[in-house]
């Protein structure tokens, strides 16, 4: 879940401007005032769309034209107000640089740092919350990634290891890459270790790339000894969880002997999120796009209920568990018993899950509103938004919901 707004307000703004930046007059404004403004702009956008709806049938060309102009201006104002929360990534880069220097001295490794994109801007909250995962990644690269100096020399590499961190915008998202030219991730070692720990069954086979992804499983650590640089039993699964919570994604690209690159893709802001609007039992919910793998519509007969497995559906030859969103939410609703079943196939850490809904209304971009503290610790609910007609709707955190429901059913069975 996202941190309470009130907490962000209490913190002083991070230093943004530095003398080396171009000289532009700036003004320091409290985050709470900014948030109020952004709130009001969001409300204005809703009213504007209601107004546009109301005049769309009007016969007055003049009125329609004015409202059209108003839409344009409103959109500009919204974009501008969203931009106000954006800060450069530079302070985080400086922090990482410091950590790399300190840790490499501690490990007696000779490291060259390559930083690109310190002026890239990102939402202040995203910046705050990506800091810890990035520190973890960098420490990992230094400790596990880059080999000791003598090892590097035997491998015919330069004595100096390189860590490069690049930040850039790509298709409306922030991308951060942490790359090292170290030993890479050996898929065989990873697989052997995962099997030994019982994280995967012994008979399972993996492509080298899939095997590398296993480092994201919880309870995984390849290094035999735990050092104080990295490895406190938290590991990469926490990094991935943190990135996912921000609506992001993390990929590994690693070649044995050459090095490893972690690529993180994040939304530019948490204030707006892309989602799919669904209907269940006359209520509407927003499912964040990050969790949505695909949407399917199948005949009811294709759902197969099996003892010890539950309801599953075969999708491209793979059985996918099927759950009903109404049941997940424990909300009374008249889930339709029509011949066709509409479902959203969602990505969770355990794999794909088909979530049955009454109707998929469409894709949309929503302004995220925090719930009050009285409703903030509800599992599986990430926040809320206000829909075009002015009614609030909940934004669901699908993996958490599925997990909570699974725990409930095992408790019942026990």
């Amino acid at each position, binding site marked *: *879940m*996202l*941190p*309470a707004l*009130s*907490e962000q307000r209490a913190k002083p703004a991070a230093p943004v401007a530095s003398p080396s930046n171009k000289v532009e007059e700036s003004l320091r404004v409290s985050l709470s005032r900014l948030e109020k403004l952004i*709130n*009001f702009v*969001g*409300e204005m956008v*809703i009213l504007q769309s209601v107004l546009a709806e109301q005049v769309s049938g009007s016969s007055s060309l003049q009125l329609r034209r004015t409202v059209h102009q108003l839409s344009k201006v409103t959109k500009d104002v919204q974009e501008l107000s969203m931009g106000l929360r954006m800060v450069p990534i530079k302070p985080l880069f400086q922090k990482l640089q410091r950590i790399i220097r300190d840790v490499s001295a501690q490990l007696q490794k000779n490291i060259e740092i390559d930083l690109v994109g310190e002026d890239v801007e990102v939402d202040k909250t995203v910046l705050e*919350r990506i800091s*810890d*995962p990035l*520190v*973890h990644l960098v420490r990992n690269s230094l400790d596990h990634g880059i080999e000791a100096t003598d090892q590097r020399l035997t491998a015919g590499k330069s004595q100096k290891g390189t860590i490069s961190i690049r930040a850039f915008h790509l298709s409306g998202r922030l991308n951060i890459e942490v790359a090292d030219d170290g030993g890479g991730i050996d898929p065989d070692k990873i697989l052997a270790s995962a099997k030994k720990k019982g994280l995967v069954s012994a008979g399972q086979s993996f492509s080298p790339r899939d095997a590398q992804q296993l480092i994201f499983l919880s309870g995984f650590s390849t290094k035999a000894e735990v050092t104080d640089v990295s490895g406190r039993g*938290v590991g990469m699964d*926490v*990094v991935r969880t*943190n990135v996912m*919570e921000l609506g992001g994604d993390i990929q590994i690209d690693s070649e044995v002997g050459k090095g490893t690159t972690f690529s993180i893709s994040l939304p530019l802001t948490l204030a707006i999120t892309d989602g799919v609007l669904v209907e269940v039992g006359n*209520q509407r919910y927003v499912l964040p796009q990050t969790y949505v793998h695909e949407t399917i519509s199948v005949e009811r007969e294709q759902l197969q209920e099996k003892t010890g497995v539950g309801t599953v559906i075969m999708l491209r030859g793979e059985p996918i568990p099927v759950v009903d969103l109404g049941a997940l*939410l*424990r*909300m009374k609703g008249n889930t339709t018993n029509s011949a066709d079943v509409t479902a959203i196939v969602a990505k969770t850490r355990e794999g794909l899950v088909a979530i049955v809904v009454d109707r998929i209304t469409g894709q949309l971009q929503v302004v995220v*509103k*925090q*719930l*009050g*503290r*009285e*409703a*903030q*610790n*509800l*599992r*599986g*609910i990430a926040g*809320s938004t*206000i829909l075009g007609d*002015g*009614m*609030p*709707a*909940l934004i669901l955190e699908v993996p958490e919901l599925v997990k909570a429901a699974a725990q409930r059913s095992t408790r019942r069975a026990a």
Partner: protein
Amino acid sequence: MAEMMHKNDHKTSRGGERRLSFSLGSQRFAIPLLSVKEVIAVPGLTPVPFTPSHFLGIMNLRGQVISVLDLRKKLDIKPGESTEQAVIICDLSPLTLGVLVDSVDSVLSPDAASILPKPEGTGAKHTEYITGIFQEGNDLVLLLDIISALDAQDFMAIDSSATKKSAA
């Protein structure tokens, strides 16, 4: 609504702290006016799963999403017969909560001397929420501790575990 409050305010001003009185079922309650942000008609509500039964849902108050609670359910009071209903938006900083009541009556200012301690030993439920009573015409008005009645102190203690969780 604001105008109505002003009128009543003049009529009943007796110099004490100003309180907003409202009805739940057939009973009258009063809460400090300072904790009231505004009074609105019952808005459209979106139910929230995994919440207790007195949690009615969330509403949109000019762009802010606010939780609305049913005080009658919380205090085990049968709803009144009147169809008039209102939501009192309470500012219990840092919380803002909406409270559904049967009707909003008036602003009263009973002076401190006329406020009596609640009778003890009646064995009634929910006595912890009542801080005193006073007479208003033929009615007894109960002073309600809105923070404890809504369990608001519990929510205030919640120090958003989300931020702690994210520390890797």
